[in-house]
């Protein structure tokens, strides 16, 4: 009698509980043979230091079938995957989602010790990439990938990797512009000091002239290079007949420079070049701060990054691997356990249990029998099945849905940010003040007119407008990122300021895809359950995994004569008793197959007597009760799901009795719903997880993908949230509202500075010194206020 536990003991390699199995080797405990094997490989190659960098850094290698990487033998595929290749060497770059710690980097960069053909390896943590250069004569792509997989670092190679060309160049121009602006700012400030610090001007006029012209020379690259974008964007805005934030900015920057130029050329004064370069510097810093993007995630995935590259085709001479793009109607293909169905096909043979939850939202696996149609994108959960392809990959029913224009083209309207909206009023106000001042001085002292008016334009610093938003939203985006809610760019947070309706998908979003609960209907003793479990363990069907998860501390019995009958169930002789587990119609030969079973039931017969059945139910995620209570109070909630499960009392009680729950929603139904909302002007958030939500996520005002595993596929969206953080949505949304208040407060502070500055300017008293002090002080205080206030708001909402 083997007891299926090593429970409580931690695997030396991967750190997981040795619940399923306990393997002892070299005085250490491992949870499975896979982990032990990796340990063996590493210690033989003297790479034991892998385990010193981190506690249990390993990844448990999944059970892979032998021919899994056969497609890498195909020359065409290799050509497309390699970044660079000549007769001797080749370079390839992999995305390896399992990279998570120092040990991973350490091991992967020393791969040459395990495979001599690898000449160089560089791994990166943020993007989880591994770039290799290898000798084409001594090794090839397939051997490398198999090595990586055997260590637990299988690279994720999808259809997406073949399509696009490799472009990795990062844009460094913003850094360069900041460098130039900062350099000039600092030096011009130094050059201005002598003039400011001496009471009656510098005694030696040559010196002052030298410093002024030196400042001018340093200021030129700032105007032409660093500040260039602001002029371009302002011009573009004016041409399009709308005033965006860049207009007052460009006005201010330009006026500062040209006024200074005038002053210096005509020897009137030192000009405002330090304010000028300082302004540009701070603005660019704001832009850098706002550029925060989460590199390890991708928000633009489409179905291509979900599909594999190849599949196994059966030909007269045996089995070959073909790229899925080459599949034609009539091809006979084999889809193995955990693999995706690449194209719409007809079932031929095998035990099919297809999980469509990602593609249609259907929570229960379908069991099509021979002759029935299966769709591309479903994941086979049972053993290997044979299928006859009906149409090409790109013409599959579901793929043609995704290619539909409505899913592809961005449906989002023009986003008018708060700053842009206010900048219109700001510009108008400044111009009005300038005009009034002009009239005043015209009548009182015309000689001061030019001075006063240009001073107004100089000091009217919209820098708070330009700095408040980036720093508030950038800080918020970072804090949210630390709480595993990643937005594509900080501006998305502004979209969350005013939301009317929140829409949820059900399967995978509100429910756990992997965890299901088992309910027993009938008289089952512990002994009976042990018989059932022992039998079920022989099946690759996920049901057996779920059963095993729910039945702990059960002794396993010996099983003989095990067999699986497609469409019916499994049977065998356990501990001397014949046991059958399967469909009702099979066990109760006199009972009709009842229609409308809400959830699949597995009936059990021991010794030819039916004992009852057990049922799987999808579990809702924990801890959402309070969240939904709070959300219901502030927003309208709706649930749209592709699931056909009509009755679900737990779900209804979670979301509230007034919340409409619509089932059997196709991807098009969901898309239509959002287009209607947009028509009515309702602002919506969509929470979804699978391909079936792609359209909805794009059509909603803000689309957020929910995922259990950040490195797994997520459809195109505006934000990604870790499923465990779903309970904090109400707090995130509340914080978004507070961010809006912080931005407005920052505007108010800036208004204060502007009033002070303008009073100096309009009265003709604005000296370069005052401007030089006012501008940096206002910028820095706005930045500090924005950042600190946002952090306080986060803490107030309970987001660390």
């Amino acid at each position, binding site marked *: 009698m083997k007891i299926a536990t090593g429970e409580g003991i931690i695997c030396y390699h991967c750190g997981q509980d040795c619940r399923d199995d306990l393997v002892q080797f070299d005085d250490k405990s491992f949870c499975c043979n896979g982990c032990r094997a990796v340990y063996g490989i590493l210690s033989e190659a003297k790479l034991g230091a892998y385990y010193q960098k981190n506690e249990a850094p390993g990844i448990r290698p999944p059970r892979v079938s032998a021919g899994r990487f056969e497609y890498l033998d195909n020359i065409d595929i290799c050509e497309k995957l390699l970044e660079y290749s000549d007769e001797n060497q080749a370079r390839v770059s992999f995305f390896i989602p399992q990279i998570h710690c120092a040990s991973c980097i350490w091991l992967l960069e*020393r791969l040459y010790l395990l495979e001599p053909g690898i000449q*160089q390896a560089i791994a990166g943590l943020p993007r989880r990439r591994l770039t290799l250069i290898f000798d084409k004569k001594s090794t090839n792509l397939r051997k490398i990938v198999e090595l990586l997989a055997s260590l637990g670092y299988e690279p994720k190679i999808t259809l997406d990797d073949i399509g696009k060309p490799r472009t990795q160049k990062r844009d460094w121009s913003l850094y360069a512009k900041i*460098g130039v602006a900062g350099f000039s700012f600092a030096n011009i400030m130094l050059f201005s000091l002598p003039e400011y610090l001496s009471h009656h001007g510098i005694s030696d006029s040559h010196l002052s002239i030298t410093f002024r012209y030196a400042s001018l020379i340093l200021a030129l690259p700032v105007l032409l290079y660093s500040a260039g974008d602001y002029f371009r964007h302002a011009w573009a805005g004016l041409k399009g007949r709308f005033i965006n934030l860049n207009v007052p900015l460009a006005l201010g920057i330009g006026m500062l420079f040209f006024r200074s130029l005038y002053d210096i050329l005509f020897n009137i004064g030192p000009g405002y070049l330090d304010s000028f370069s300082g302004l540009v510097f701070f603005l660019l810093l704001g832009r850098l701060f706002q550029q925060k993007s989460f590199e390890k995630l991708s928000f633009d995935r489409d179905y291509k990054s979900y599909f594999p590259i190849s599949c196994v085709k059966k030909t007269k001479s045996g089995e070959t691997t073909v790229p899925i793009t080459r599949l034609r109607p009539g091809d006979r293909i084999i889809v193995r356990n955990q693999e995706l169905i690449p194209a719409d096909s007809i079932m031929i043979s095998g035990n099919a249990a297809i999980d469509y939850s990602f593609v249609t939202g259907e929570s229960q696996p379908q069991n099509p029998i021979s002759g029935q149609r299966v769709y591309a994108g479903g994941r086979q959960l049972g053993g290997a099945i044979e299928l006859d392809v009906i149409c090409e990959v790109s013409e599959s029913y579901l793929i043609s849905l995704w290619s539909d224009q409505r899913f592809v083209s961005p449906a989002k309207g023009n986003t008018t940010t708060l700053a842009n909206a206010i900048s219109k009023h700001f510009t108008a106000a400044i111009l009005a003040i300038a005009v009034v001042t002009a009239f005043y001085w015209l009548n009182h002292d015309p000689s001061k007119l030019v001075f006063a008016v240009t001073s107004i334009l100089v000091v009217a610093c919209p820098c708070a407008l330009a700095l408040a938003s980036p720093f508030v939203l950038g800080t918020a985006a970072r804090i949210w990122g630390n709480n595993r809610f990643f937005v594509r760019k900080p501006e998305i947070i502004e979209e969350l300021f005013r939301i009317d309706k929140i829409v949820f998908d059900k399967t995978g979003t509100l429910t756990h895809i992997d965890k299901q609960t088992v309910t027993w209907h009938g008289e089952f003793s512990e002994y009976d359950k042990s018989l059932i479990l022992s039998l079920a363990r022989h099946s690759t069907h996920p049901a057996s995994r779920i059963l095993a998860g729910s039945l702990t501390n059960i002794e396993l019995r010996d099983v003989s004569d095990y067999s699986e009958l497609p469409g019916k169930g499994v049977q065998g002789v356990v501990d001397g008793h014949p046991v059958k587990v399967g469909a009702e119609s099979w066990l109760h030969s006199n009972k009709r197959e009842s229609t409308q079973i809400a959830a699949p039931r597995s009936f059990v017969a021991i010794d030819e007597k039916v004992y009852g059945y057990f049922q799987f139910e999808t579990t809702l995620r924990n801890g959402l009760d309070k969240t939904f209570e709070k959300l219901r109070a502030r927003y309208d909630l709706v649930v749209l799901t592709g699931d056909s499960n009509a009755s679900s009392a737990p779900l209804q009680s979670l979301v509230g009795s007034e919340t409409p729950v619509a089932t059997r929603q196709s991807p098009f139904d969901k898309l239509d719903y959002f287009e209607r909302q947009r028509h009515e002007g309702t602002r919506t958030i969509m929470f979804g997880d699978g391909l079936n939500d792609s359209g909805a996520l794009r059509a909603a005002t803000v689309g957020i993908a929910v995922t259990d595993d950040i490195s797994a596929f997520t459809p195109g969206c505006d934000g990604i949230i870790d499923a465990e953080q779903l309970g904090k949505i109400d707090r995130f949304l509340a914080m978004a509202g507070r961010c809006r208040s912080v931005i407005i407060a920052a505007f108010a502070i800036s208004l204060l500075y502007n009033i002070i500055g303008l009073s100096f300017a309009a009265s003709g008293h604005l000296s370069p010194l005052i401007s030089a002090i006012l501008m940096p002080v206002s910028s820095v205080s706005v930045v500090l206020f924005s950042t600190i206030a946002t952090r306080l708001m986060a803490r107030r909402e309970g987001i660390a």
Partner: protein
Amino acid sequence: MSVVIILLIASVLVAGGFLAAFLWAVRNGQYDDLETPSVRILFDDAEIISDKKPSSFPKE
């Protein structure tokens, strides 16, 4: 006064040198990945008993 001119030019040259170095570092991709080098520093290659050394990475 002439000394100050010389100082001015010298200081601008030195500062300019630093700016050039910064721009070179950015172009060289040193700011692309700020996380991994911090991890690599702690590696100790003496832990592996091997005579194989990684060859230099050819730049593309």
